[in-house]
């Protein structure tokens, strides 16, 4: 029962598509998804924490490098 206009497609009560990623059952997903879904989803929290940590540490390395560059610039200005 698809309507003519896109605006009136009811996606709240009807599935937008029968290919819905979240609906896949356990046996159909790959090993990674099964692992992440185990133990009450704690590994998802671990994943989120590690992403935050790794981004922050990457940022820290970059700032450290930038300060080093400034230090070297000052050092070379002094000697020249």
């Amino acid at each position: 029962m698809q309507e003519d206009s896109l605006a009136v497609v009811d996606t709240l009560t009807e599935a937008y598509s029968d290919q819905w990623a979240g609906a896949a059952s356990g046996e159909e997903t790959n090993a990674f998804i099964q692992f992440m879904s185990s133990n009450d989803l704690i590994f998802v929290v671990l994943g989120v924490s590690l992403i935050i940590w790794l981004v922050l540490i990457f940022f820290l390395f970059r700032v450290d490098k930038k300060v080093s560059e400034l230090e070297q610039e000052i050092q070379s200005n002094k000697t020249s």
Partner: protein
Amino acid sequence: MKIWKYVVAIWMTVVISAGFLIYIPEIPILEQTARNIFFHVPMWMTMFVLFLISFWYSIKYLNEPDPVFDIKASSAASVGVAFGVCGLLTGSLWARFTWGSWWTFAEPKMNLAALALMIYVAYFMLRSAFDDREKRAKLAAVYNIFAVTTIPFLLYVVPRQLTSLHPGADGNPAFSEITADELRFILYPAFIGFIALGIWIYDIHHRYNRVKLELENS
């Protein structure tokens, strides 16, 4: 880039992962939040170490008024305050789900920890009040020596004498029979990792301030 920074990055990644992954015994009320100990307590330990570094350079400044010592003292104090704020916020979140309230005004450790941080906030307010660099450095150093002496009393001596829900109060050691022994295997590496991370951030912070000082002087 010094090699120890890479070690800290890997070490901390392992500590965070292990903190989530190791088996922890079932503790009533705490349940899985017992893992918070790996992250909440090291915040305070890192704060103490940074305040000690700050204290050390304040003394050195009073001995020999080199502006670099002042920069090191204020940088260590500001990174220490940042870790202290993390400790307060994580403690507050943890308290909501174990004690049932975001903030308990009858809880000595919580309130005194907040007071300790305010003493350090006052340190930065004091610093901002002076335009003259030498005057600022000298007064800040004297104030800092006063500030650091309050820390053991506010966070250990006084809370231990009072009734409190926080472990380590009411005459109890923080780690007693009520706490599972296994937690130490991650907790102590977490102390080392977070303290090293704090020192790293302090290292960047004080080098930035030094560069700024050099540019102002040139």
